[in-house]
């Protein structure tokens, strides 16, 4: 049993729709293919499917939001430079 493998399996489910689809179609087989133990595979059979989809969507939205961050950061840059200038 490996907690690291389990986290990696969850991460893949959270970011990859194809992995989720394969897992949904056959949870036990997918979990075992990922090297999870029988106990871990069994635990995943009772997964909160609705929560899995909602969480995955939320993570996808967050990844998408990262793109405009550079614009915000540049705004932060300008503001902080202005503060430095005004105070110095």
């Amino acid at each position, binding site marked *: 049993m*490996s*907690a*690291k493998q*389990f*986290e*990696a399996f*969850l*991460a*893949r489910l*959270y*970011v990859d729709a194809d992995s989720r689809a394969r897992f949904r179609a056959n949870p036990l087989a997918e979990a075992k293919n990922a090297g999870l133990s029988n106990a*871990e595979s069994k*635990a*995943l059979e009772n*997964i*909160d499917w*609705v*929560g*899995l*989809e*909602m*969480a995955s969507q*939320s*993570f*996808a939205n*967050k*990844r998408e939001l*990262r793109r405009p961050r550079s614009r*915000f*950061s540049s*705004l*932060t*840059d300008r*503001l*902080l*430079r202005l*503060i*430095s200038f005004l*105070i*110095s």
Partner: protein
Amino acid sequence: MAAADAVEEAAGVADAGAETMNASCDTVGIGWRPELAAGILDHHDRIDLVEVIADDFFGEPRRVRALKTLSTQVPITLHGVGLGLASASAVETWRIERMAHLVESISPLFWSEHLAFVRADGIEIGHLAAPPRSDATVDGAAENLLRASRIVGVKPFMENIATLIEPPGSALDEASWISKILSASDCDLLLDLHNVFANGLNHGYDPKEFLRQIPAGRIRAIHIAGGKLISAPDGTQRVLDDHLHDVPDPVFDLLEEAAALSLNPLSVILERDGSYPSMESLLAEVSQARQVLARGRTRRAERVEVPG
């Protein structure tokens, strides 16, 4: 409002007594966002502290110099979002060292991170995810936290996260898992009350009971924020912690509860990530937080004064 004025306001509501000494040390501030910068600077006399996202400053020496200048105007805390310390995997040393350099440069009031993993086996999740709540992740988190504390030189306050899914493969409930990590790492808690509120609704527990289950002596800082209900495919609703809405009354109720439970001075941060209202509205929430804290401190003092 300056910290000293905040002391007077809090103490005035809380009334005199030994326990109000804690209220007089409580501080309330706002999360730094570019859109709020002008408002924060215009009203820094009404804000006790500002929380800055540390990751925005990694490897950016010019920004760090500017941040250092800002820290002369208002006390700063650093909040990390990308370390992924609550993991069975060891966090790379270079990631921790980036935080260490920033902490050394800025000398914040404290630094904080999340009880979450954000990547595994090279896969970047892109946000904070809850690992399985198990003894393995307790051990992994504790090892990461001990190493991070050693490298940075200061222990972080660790924040509980909101989850739309009950972490699969969990053997421990959330309160027990958090308590075990804090105990094993000797780290204190940044208690996010909207996350407690959201998880309570999403996963069917009583948020106030949750507060009674975590070690009150570990609560050192608090986040307050607002989210929204979203519809699930099965017709139910869950709370999304999006920080785009005003702080709801149940979260202020939890703030009073936390203040009534804790003996520590508390640093409260209002988080807002978008759909920004006027600065006056945000300052009104800051003011409300001070009043609620004071009410909680009064309850705490009354409880201590009643024998038995």
